[in-house]
């Protein structure tokens, strides 16, 4: 993404004009836009007009509109970002306050006005516009009969295609069905690779699996490349990396990102950092549970005492429509930084971010143990971790089981 213009006042209000260039930029914008922000962008509007004779016609007009944002939707697969709100700019075609939906487009400027550009929002802009941080990787995680062809960028893991082909198993005296099925499977993965991977852009292509699936797939790919004289594949052969992982499910990307050969090849990626931090959290929870906490209440308490060494939060928390919630977490982030702690904002589009999100979205590794935190408010935390509806259900169940 390119930063075209930035103008922010002392009171933190102001605007930023940006030029999105790729799919990941849409994700950044999705994380930037909040309800009540104002968005100015070019858009298409269907205009009804009535002619002098009274017959009405409709036509599509491209125009620039400003809206006050009410809802934001993002489809990472399609890279489609839709923002809905009321029109706040005068226009010859559109009435003020009428509703309009903007589908944000690549390669066109847009301007975002905020009453308050907080730390997280400003960092997001900075991050998004830093081209040195770009490191796209294609990863195929597979097991016999299952493959996930993924694109991993700094902030996103997108499953481009999930291939699931039943492979007949070996049977006494006959392995032909099995071997044919396997061949078909490798071919499907090969086709998906050609379709979804842009070899000019990706820094590496990782093939990961348990057992020998990765080796067999790799051989299949290059056998085909030779047969079909695919120069693109041959030239990119050094970019391929075979890595062990425990399954073909998307979760396995966590293992892949932690693999030494992947780390060496891709240097420091955000995804790998997040996996490592979350791992460290779990190890701490095991070895010294008084130094590892999750859930806002516990973490905030640890912060009050200046005990947080590493704070992990998911970006989902900052997308909250509720301003107070967002502010609450920003204060936490700023507090941790002020006392010298490190803050990692996890992307919920990465596997680790998904996991952290389910673990209340916030966790911390402390620099010193705080054994009394847990006892202080056991009950409160129990409540906090529940979506109330589910909780009451569960209690009934527990009763039923005689728990």
């Amino acid at each position, binding site marked *: 993404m390119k930063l075209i213009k930035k103008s922010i006042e002392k009171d933190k209000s102001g605007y930023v004009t940006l030029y999105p260039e790729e799919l990941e930029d849409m994700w950044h914008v999705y994380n930037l836009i909040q309800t009540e922000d104002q968005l100015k962008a070019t858009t298409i509007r269907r205009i009804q007009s009535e002619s002098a004779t009274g017959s009405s016609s409709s036509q599509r007009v491209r125009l620039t509109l400003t809206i006050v944002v009410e809802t934001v939707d993002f489809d990472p697969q399609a890279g489609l970002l839709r923002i809905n709100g009321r029109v706040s700019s005068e226009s010859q075609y559109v009435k003020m306050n009428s509703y309009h939906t903007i589908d944000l487009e690549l390669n066109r400027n847009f301007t975002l006005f905020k009453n308050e550009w907080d730390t997280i929002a400003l960092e997001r802009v900075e991050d998004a516009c830093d081209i040195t941080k770009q490191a796209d990787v294609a990863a195929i995680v597979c*097991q016999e*009969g299952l493959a996930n062809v993924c694109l991993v960028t700094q902030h996103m893991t997108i499953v481009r295609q999930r291939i*699931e082909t*039943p492979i*007949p*198993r*070996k*049977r*006494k*005296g006959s*392995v032909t*069905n*099995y*071997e044919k*099925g396997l061949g078909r499977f490798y071919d499907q993965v090969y086709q998906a690779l050609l379709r979804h991977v842009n070899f000019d852009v990706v820094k590496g292509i990782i093939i990961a699996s*348990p*057992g*020998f699936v990765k080796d*067999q797939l790799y051989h299949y790919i290059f056998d085909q490349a030779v047969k079909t004289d695919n120069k693109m594949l041959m030239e990119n052969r050094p970019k391929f990396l075979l890595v*062990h*992982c*425990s*399954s073909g*499910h*998307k*979760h396995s990307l*966590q*293992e892949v990102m932690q693999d030494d050969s992947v780390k060496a090849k891709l240097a420091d990626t955000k995804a790998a950092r997040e996996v490592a931090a979350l*791992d460290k959290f*779990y*190890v701490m*929870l*095991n070895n010294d*549970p008084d130094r590892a906490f*999750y859930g806002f209440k516990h973490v905030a308490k640890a912060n009050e005492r200046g005990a947080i060494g590493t704070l992990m939060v998911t970006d989902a928390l900052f997308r909250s429509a509720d301003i107070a919630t967002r502010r609450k977490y920003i204060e936490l982030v700023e507090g941790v930084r002020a006392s010298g702690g490190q803050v990692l904002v996890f992307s919920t589009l990465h*596997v680790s971010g*998904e*996991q*952290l*999100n*389910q*673990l*209340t979205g916030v966790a911390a590794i402390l620099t010193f143990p705080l054994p009394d935190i*847990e006892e202080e408010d056991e009950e409160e*935390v*129990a409540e906090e*971790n*529940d979506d109330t509806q*589910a909780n009451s*259900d*569960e209690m009934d*169940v*527990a009763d*039923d*089981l*005689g*728990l």
Partner: protein
Amino acid sequence: MSKQPSQQHAKVTSGQGKSTDEDVEFLEDDDDNQMDFDMAALNLGEKKLKIATAKPKKVSSIASTPVSSQPSSPKVTPLAKIPPSKRVDVEAEYAKRTSDKAKLNMVVIGHVDAGKSTLMGHFLYALGQVSEKTIRKYEREAQKIGKSSFAYAWVLDETGEERIRGITMDIATNSFETTSKQFTLLDAPGHRDFIPNMISGAAQADVAILVIDATTGEFEAGFDANGQTKEHALLVRSLGVQQMIVAVNKLDAMEWSKPRFDEITAKLGTFLIQAGFRKSKLHFVPVSGLTGENLVKKTEGCPLYDWYKGQTLVERVDQFEPPVRLLDKPFRMAVSDFFKGGIGSSSGVSVAGRIDAGHVQVGEQVVAIPGGEIGVIKTMQVNDDTATWGAAGDSCLMTLTGLDIMQLSSGTVLCTPAHPVPVTSTFIAQLVVFDIKVPITSGFPIILHHQSLNEPASIVKLIATIDKATGEIIKKNPRHLSKGSTATVRIKLDNRPIPLETFKDNKDLGRVMLRKGGETVAAGVVTQILTFGS
């Protein structure tokens, strides 16, 4: 799939009873009280319905016992176009067959290279299941690729990749008979990468042989934290296997040393008993898979018999007890394999698996869940022999007509159309946490293994930790679960719902294994299904 009958639904959510003991002690269950437990869950009279294959007389009484109309134990005849004259009285046939020779499924497990495939290959050869000619051929071919020591293993390792690498990758199925029983043999891969296949095989097994490499350093390597010996043993136990033979293998390479045998027996015995095996159901047998010693025959003059006066492997295997089969429950078969084309290159779709409950016969309709598509059984095989019917416990291959292969997937359960298995994406399970490196928290992503299926899922909530002995809650809403703990949790499938039953309704389809990063983190039983529908 079609909606669950509301009555069934009501039963699942509220009929949990107070059998907390069994809930908690599912790793210490034994056949008898498990059956009682199942019966109690169904509110059925215990006595008359007990079907023990070992006691065929009781079975005949079942055929004439009117069964109550409880939803989960219907006496429904699947809509079949079989004329009554041709209909098989399966329960009567089953009793007949069982009084002749009972059928059992046996899985062979153990660390990679312990000698499982060699041992079983040799065993099958010694029993006459594999011809002299075949073995000689394998010897020649194996030698050609420099793998001559694997000739017997080739009986089971049939794919090119397996033979070249000398590693079993998927379950191999075979069958053999002893004096009093018929066995389906499942040779499992030992390598940790293929544990999903091993689970799929072990889920079908009644009994197990654990193979141990007795050579210096190798027993230790298999037994330590990174070895597969312990994980395999825990897995089969968690999957309901209670009787196990430990084959202490490769003793030929240890000069048939008694101290070594005793050392292994002692170390392993302690662990296995901790893991929930009963001493009376564990047997240690010294063998050599390579030389064939003490598999079926005892060679005179072999130093082993200076100190070993016990049974051969086959004698011991013959003494495995047939487990109680759920013959009177609605028909269910978790599909472990399927492919286009019927048996003997006829048309249709072939489906293989072990019948978990109930029975079927040729001509009957079955429904594939999820999906709800119905097919008719055209032909079938039980243990590789043509059959007209199959019952709980049987390893079956059947040809179905009228069913599109696209409707099948790994994880499909074939059911009687009158009572299909529930399909769910959220359920409550009681877990026993294995020896894990990091604790389990809510949000923990796992791979859920259920029969032959493995699917990504998450532990979305830790409900309570439980005292294993008393069944009482230790802590509600625990922050995390550490190794060895017992807990109830809520689990949610990430991608799609799967067919699942509560442990009370079906002890095979009610068990799950949870793995993460290539390690088994917990075993569990399904206590409640929270959402229904596909």
